[in-house]
């Protein structure tokens, strides 16, 4: 039951928050915080036993496995299960949910109840995506988490919000429909080949489908995930959505929503279509590398701070794609690490941009500058996260990118060399961001009364710093949590071993 309880807490908290608005406009955010903190309760037994004890993971893939019958006609069940990978991503989701709340605390003043309803429901949807093991249920969560996100952007966003929300919804829905058809085709072909009608991941994985159609089915799934990742031809919704979304929504979007794409590839595409994904790999590697370079170059020319960070996301997520399709254990572990590190560093940057915009009412790089004089603490954090984003050794991002590059060099040396140039480009745009925002001539000399970070903001940012440093200095527990051998990724050479 604990996973269903985990899902229902934010759902009910959202409804409660909405209802409480009629009593007091401040009540919704308190309820939101309480319900997010309560989400940790079902996880406590796991937190006690698991993270630093790899032997728990040795026996079976699923730590918790819960299933109820849902639509018997199609043999669809409400099947939630948790393994190391989803555990990590759920922790990320819950932490980033708190960060998003912290950044929304003073920013959102209108229609607070509805805002926190949508925020909590988006988080519930994302949690569902990470937990659902029945493919139909996964699809339902995949689509449903978009609707509250759409409202978040469309109601509380900035000047061009309707267009951005529209684009976001249409792009992801198009990917979703493609996935629906691939999903049905997968189940149909599986039924044809084995005689078992099932949407259950554990059953589908036992007999991966073969044949010509398998390639197309895999491609359908992959494209749906690429849209969310986002990879190059399908990325154009991301800068708009990020730019127009309120800070809290940007944080959720960057930290967890994009991760569902990478999660989908690792969880579903690679194990369910072992043959087809090997066929797809060269194209995906190419798309990943192009995404890395293109995203970095686009980030370089932006004048809007949020757009800059958004394009840097495209670049970083290219590494995830690279790591997923390198068919190498180092690269795969690196991809998971990249999802975590990017989730934290990029959303920290969005939080910072939100703080700057809250204080100066602009995100234009040309109108900012010299912030260090007025806001030393905030600028120091900006420096830290900018450097994290360029991949400084000692922080999580470096570990991730290094592993991905090491892993994919074995099979794709030329592409990897190209991808490595992304690190240099990342240095260029990150330093540009730091230089133009925090150093240089101050454009607002008379506004010295703008307050620096308050305690709440400071705590949020400092905790994110510590997480990044921990990820960079002691990543081993996180690698242990993702037991690649148990995920039936059969292509990994056995002699390399499961852990680094």
């Amino acid at each position, binding site marked *: 039951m604990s996973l269903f309880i985990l899902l229902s807490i934010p759902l009910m908290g959202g409804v409660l928050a909405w209802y409480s608005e009629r009593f007091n406009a401040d009540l919704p955010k308190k309820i939101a915080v309480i319900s997010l903190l309560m989400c940790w309760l079902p996880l406590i037994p796991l937190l006690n036993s698991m993270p630093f004890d790899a032997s728990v993971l040795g026996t079976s893939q699923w730590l918790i496995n819960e299933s109820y019958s849902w639509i018997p006609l199609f043999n669809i069940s409400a099947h939630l299960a948790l393994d190391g990978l989803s555990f990590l991503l759920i922790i990320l989701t819950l932490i980033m949910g708190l960060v998003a709340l912290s950044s929304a605390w003073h920013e959102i003043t209108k229609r607070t109840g509805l805002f926190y309803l949508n925020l909590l429901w988006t988080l519930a949807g994302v949690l569902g995506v990470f937990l659902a093991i029945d493919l139909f249920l996964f699809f*339902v969560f995949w689509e*449903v988490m978009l*609707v509250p996100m759409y409202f978040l952007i*469309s109601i509380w966003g900035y000047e061009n919000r309707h267009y951005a929300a529209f684009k976001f919804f249409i792009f992801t*829905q198009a990917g979703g429909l493609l996935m629906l058809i691939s999903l*049905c085709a997968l*189940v*149909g072909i599986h039924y*044809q080949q084995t005689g078992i009608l099932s949407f259950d991941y554990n059953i589908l994985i036992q007999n991966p489908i073969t044949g010509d159609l398998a390639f197309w089915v895999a491609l359908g799934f992959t494209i749906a995930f690429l849209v969310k990742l986002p990879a190059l031809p399908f990325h154009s919704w991301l800068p708009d959505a990020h730019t127009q979304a309120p800070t809290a929504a940007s944080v959720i979007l960057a930290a967890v929503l994009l991760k569902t794409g990478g999660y989908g590839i690792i969880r579903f595409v690679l194990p369910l279509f072992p043959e087809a994904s090997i066929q797809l790999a060269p194209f995906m590697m190419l798309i990943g590398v192009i995404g890395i370079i293109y995203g970095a170059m686009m980030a370089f020319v932006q004048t809007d701070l949020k757009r800059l960070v958004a394009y840097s996301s495209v670049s970083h997520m290219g590494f995830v794609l690279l790591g997923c399709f390198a068919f190498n254990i180092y690269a795969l572990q690196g991809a998971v690490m990249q999802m975590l590190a990017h989730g934290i560093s990029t959303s920290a940057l969005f939080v910072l941009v939100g703080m700057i915009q809250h204080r100066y009412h602009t995100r234009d790089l040309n109108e900012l500058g010299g912030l260090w004089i007025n806001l030393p603490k905030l600028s120091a954090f900006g420096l830290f996260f900018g450097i994290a984003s360029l991949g400084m050794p000692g922080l999580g991002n470096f570990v991730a990118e290094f592993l991905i590059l090491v892993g994919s060099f074995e099979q794709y040396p030329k592409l990897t060399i190209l991808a490595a140039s992304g690190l240099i480009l990342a240095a260029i745009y990150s330093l540009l961001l730091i230089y133009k925002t925090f150093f240089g001539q101050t454009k607002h000399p008379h506004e010295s009364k703008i307050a620096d970070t308050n305690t709440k903001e400071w705590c949020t940012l400092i905790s994110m710093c510590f997480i990044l440093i921990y990820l960079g200095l002691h990543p081993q527990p996180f690698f242990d949590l993702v037991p690649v051998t148990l995920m039936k990724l059969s292509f990994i050479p056995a002699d390399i071993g499961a852990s680094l």
Partner: protein
Amino acid sequence: MNVYYYPASIVMFAALLILIQLCFKRSHITSYLISGLSIFIALFMQFVLQNQPTSQTNSSNVLFIFNAQTSFVAFLLLMVVGLIWAQLYNWLKTINEQKEEYYLLFLLSTIGGLIMVSSNHFASFFLGLELMSLSFVGLIAYCGHDQKAQEAGIKYLILSAIASAFILMGAALLYLQFGSLSFSELLQNTSSEILPPWAIITAIIFIFTGLFFKLSLVPCHLWVADLFEGAPLVTAAMLATLSKLAVFIILWRLVTLGNWQQYQIIIDIISIVAVASMFIGNFLGLLQKNLLRLIAYSSIAHFGYLLIVLLLINNNAISFSSQSFNEQTLFFYLVAYLFTLVGVFSIFMQLPKTKTLDDLTGLFWHKPFIAITLMLLMLSLAGIPLTLGFMAKFYLVMAAVSQQLWLVLTALVISSIIGLFYYLRVIMTMLKTPEDELKFSDIKSDGRNLSLNILILFLVIGFGIFPSSLSQFIQQVTG
């Protein structure tokens, strides 16, 4: 008399009763109650009949066929009519015409629909069709002072007469070949070739033309938007639900009983019409400002999707899609679409002054419950998960994938995305900040409307989240 005739007889009796009542004393409320009572008694009887073992009276020359499927469709039809009836009283109070005759025509068209869904013979089918169409002419042109309504009425009269003529011609040609007007004999005498195959195909195309007109599928769709806009709101709701349901059931029965998919050209025609309807319907809806026209175009697209069901027969590529699964798909889709559409229309009836999309601006901030209901209905039409519309689309995709109809599926995906644009536009308009604070102050949200909205939400969202009871029921029906 067969017990299956009772529901239609009761409705007919109520129609006569209203006619007699009109001779003595006009009373709006009496007519309202008589019609409502008859519909609900018929609904109840149909429900009882649903659980009865079917008496197989499949001798070939009977006019009607009664089995679990026809009972189910009749039940669905009566339910839709009942939901529309629930709004009728408040709506009729707002118009300046005599009110009682509306109930008469309303019941007559219901009888026409009931006759059609269980007809097994061209004679009974045609009778039902004409009864329904002619009542519709009256229903459409009911507001005598409304120019647009008059125009729409004339349009419908002429076009539906032409469509009927096509159907009659097709039926005559089929009679020449088979020597019978019964649907169940459409297949039997094929050994004695009297007519060349092309003549039969011509006959089929004639019948299709007539039926496609009623369903407003693409080459015959031009009337539908004008009609929805011009006709009174309730009539538009009846046209969109009752008439299309009855006609589609006939189309399905003809195609399956006559095994018309044996002709490749018929398959091609259905595919082309389906794809064209999806695309053209959704494209026309794209920049539409008038809400009713938007719904009209969306209904073109939805029946385009539904036509996929007709392509699903006889090539069992993957065997879980048996004949019964195709029927389940058909019924589930019809249930989902009709409930959603009735919901949309009843919301429109609660917003009497709302004609265009812009009139909805800011509804969400003033009447949140109505707006949320409409939003969820739009999401259901667009096929977003956890709504009934999504489950229907899922059924359709499952069925189509199992028969590997990749081309139509591609069209379905692309046109659904196009369709998403205008469904989202409706939602987005409601979310915008309103400029006029008092615009929605005249909307009554009394208990009746509220409970109706809750019922609609229960049907659309409840069955969307927990579809298993509905799907099991449909599975039982199709046996």
